[in-house]
């Protein structure tokens, strides 16, 4: 994969464009700016006093281009004429789209300074929002800020080596360390599957390796047990030399004491357990004291937050005036809707649905795209714009302001059928990648898209987070919720293992790719050394296909 030096590359100008800029600089662009009208959907156009018509044929249909030297408007048919007649009049602008066009090359061309002026028109007219709006036009910087990692989280090669050598300890079994079955304690596969995935998350496992004081709070009586300590216990049990399946009874007990509302015998939602456990870790930091959530919302540095927490941004834009209000909310994961076309009633029958021919949106990318798509909220939503008091409605758009180190994507397969109090399940196959690039779903990308993808550096939206992810665990569900079964596929050093309660077996990559996924766990690629082989394999496959 190409290394990217910025969110998008400034394309090299054709020689006519560079020539033009050398001769005239950016003055013509600036002169144009009062005629640029930017719309709310990222489109822009050139609007003058009169209706533009071709100076040669007086036509008004089709694309019209205005020469940036003499302002003569030509239609496509007569553009050539104009170029030939004038002295190097080869740069024009598409009147309807405010896009630069090189008549000699016969192609649309791009210039960051021109784009900057187009964006500044839009930004100038925008009412500003205190929270996340734009504080003005800024020159595009070519520098890229490197993300500063927490010292606790790994780029440290020594720590990484420790992690890897932990895997090499087992000369006997020659299987990586940390693989161990978990006994089903009675409909507890939901817990087992999440534990298998959780304990494999690099930041968490590195943290647990170092934790020496996990026995410190074991004897607290009367208070709620420390879930982090319990997880640490399970973690060390998984890495012990004993290969017989481990019974996470204490974990179940502690979790029940911590979350009484979910404490009952019977199958549960694995995702619910996952969130509950992370909340439990968050509540109890290393200090072992109960936290007051409101105080620590911003400052928490618990491992759950460090590893899994990201920031989701919600933008609500008034369609009347363009005023955008922004709210950011921390999250441990992202729950994605599935396309609802094939939702079948599976509440009572236990028949498995055949994986249908895949529709274009039954891919993970499709779900992510749906999630970050601008959604029109109708006028029945009681929307009152705080800027213009308009009530015609708004556009709501979700995006990711900050990506977590470990990205958990939850596929919303279960839905409650309100009329019948039955849980329905969507068993449709969902395609998912092993290597995931999250660039398109970042707030910086969605904002840029809102402005027509113009080349412009928006202040306060620098995209410096790492966007490349590699999958390391998949939790799958089969059957219906009440009597269904969870298994986890783990990827360790390029080999996939199936963790089915006490059973640990090797499986093919294809089995995993074809499985019915429920929760997908990705980790930032830079945190994992041993996934290099896979990404180079894909990269070389891509190179092969592009050569041929």
């Amino acid at each position, binding site marked *: 994969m190409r290394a990217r030096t910025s969110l998008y590359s400034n394309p090299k100008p054709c020689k006519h464009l560079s020539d033009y800029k050398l001769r005239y600089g950016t003055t013509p662009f600036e002169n144009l700016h009062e005629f640029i009208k930017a719309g709310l959907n990222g489109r822009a156009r050139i609007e003058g006093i009169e209706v533009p018509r071709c100076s040669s044929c007086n036509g008004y249909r089709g694309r019209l281009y205005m020469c940036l030297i003499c302002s003569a408007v030509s239609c496509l048919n007569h553009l050539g004429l104009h170029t030939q007649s004038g002295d190097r009049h080869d740069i024009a602008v598409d009147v309807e789209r405010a896009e630069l066009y090189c008549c000699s090359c016969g192609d649309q061309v791009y210039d960051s300074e021109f784009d900057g002026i187009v964006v500044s028109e839009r930004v100038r007219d925008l009412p500003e929002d205190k929270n996340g709006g734009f504080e003005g036009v800024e020159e595009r910087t070519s520098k890229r800020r490197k993300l500063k990692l927490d010292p606790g989280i790994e780029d440290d090669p020594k720590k990484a080596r420790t992690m890897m050598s932990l895997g090499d300890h087992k000369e006997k079994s020659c299987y990586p360390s940390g693989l161990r079955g978990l006994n089903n304690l009675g409909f507890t596969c939901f817990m087992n599957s999440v534990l298998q995935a959780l304990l494999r998350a690099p930041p968490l496992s590195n943290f647990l390796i170092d934790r020496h004081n996990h026995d410190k709070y074991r004897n607290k009586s009367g208070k709620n047990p420390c879930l982090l300590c319990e997880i640490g216990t399970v973690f060390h049990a998984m890495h012990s030399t004993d290969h017989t399946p481990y019974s996470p009874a204490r974990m179940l007990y502690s979790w029940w004491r911590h979350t009484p509302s979910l404490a009952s015998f019977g199958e549960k939602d694995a995702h619910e357990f996952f969130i509950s456990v992370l909340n439990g870790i968050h509540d109890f930091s290393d200090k072992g004291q*109960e936290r007051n959530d409101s105080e620590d919302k911003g400052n928490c540095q618990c491992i759950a937050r460090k590893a899994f927490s990201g920031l989701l941004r919600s933008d609500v834009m008034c369609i009347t005036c363009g005023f955008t209000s922004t709210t950011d909310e921390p999250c441990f994961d992202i729950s994605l809707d599935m396309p609802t076309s094939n939702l079948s009633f599976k509440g009572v029958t236990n028949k498995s649905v055949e994986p249908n021919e895949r529709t274009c949106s039954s891919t993970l990318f499709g779900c992510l795209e749906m999630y970050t798509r601008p959604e029109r909220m109708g006028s029945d939503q009681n929307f009152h714009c705080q800027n213009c008091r308009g009530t015609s409605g708004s556009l709501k758009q979700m995006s990711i302001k900050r990506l977590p180190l470990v990205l958990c994507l939850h596929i919303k397969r279960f839905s409650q059928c309100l009329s019948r109090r039955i849980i329905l399940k969507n068993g449709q196959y969902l*395609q998912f990648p092993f290597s995931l690039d999250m660039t398109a779903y970042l707030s910086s990308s969605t904002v840029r898209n809102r402005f027509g993808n113009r080349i412009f550096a928006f202040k306060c939206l620098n995209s410096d987070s790492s966007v490349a992810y590699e999958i390391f665990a998949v939790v799958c569900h089969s059957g219906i919720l009440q009597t269904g079964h969870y298994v986890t596929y783990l990827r360790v050093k390029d080999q996939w293992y199936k963790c089915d309660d006490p059973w640990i077996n090797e499986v093919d*990559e294809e089995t995993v790719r074809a499985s019915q996924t429920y929760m997908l766990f990705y980790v930032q690629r830079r945190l994992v050394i041993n996934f290099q082989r896979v990404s180079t394999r894909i990269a070389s496959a891509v190179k092969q296909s592009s050569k041929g």
Partner: protein
Amino acid sequence: MSGPNDDNHTELSSYFFEDLLDSVIVDIASECHRIARLGLDHNLDEEEEELRLSEEACARVADPSYNGEMNSKYVVDIFGQAHPPVATEIFECMNCGRSVMAGKFAPHLEKCMGKGRKARLKMTRSSTAAQSRHSRGSPVSAYSPYSNSTSAHRLANGSPAAGEPYSNGTSEEP
């Protein structure tokens, strides 16, 4: 009845419709051109590669001659062990001290901690004082700052799922 007027109308409509259609097509072409030229779709190749791999995987797995696992039962695991359907390990319950078999631990714990419906019914018959002892606990999910944006799918606390042998019994918890 078609007269000269009607023909003009039809012609005019097509005329303008074509204009609009052309304009829309060029809009999209221009956007895509910009995206491609600026390199915003740089990972398109990788995405397609992943799609291809998934398709191949599904085809292979669906093939009846595929001998991979897919719900098949294993004889042994990677450590050479076999496991019974219900876990047989015996250990001590940390709540009451009794010896319990692993596979039956959850139902035991439920009664032991007084969580299940049957256990609770039994208790309300005996005394209410004992019940209040067990209803303390922090409803973490209510206060957590990390709620999911949409949770329509979730098994709501307290909603009894059909077919469950024991009711969730969660609605009583404060």
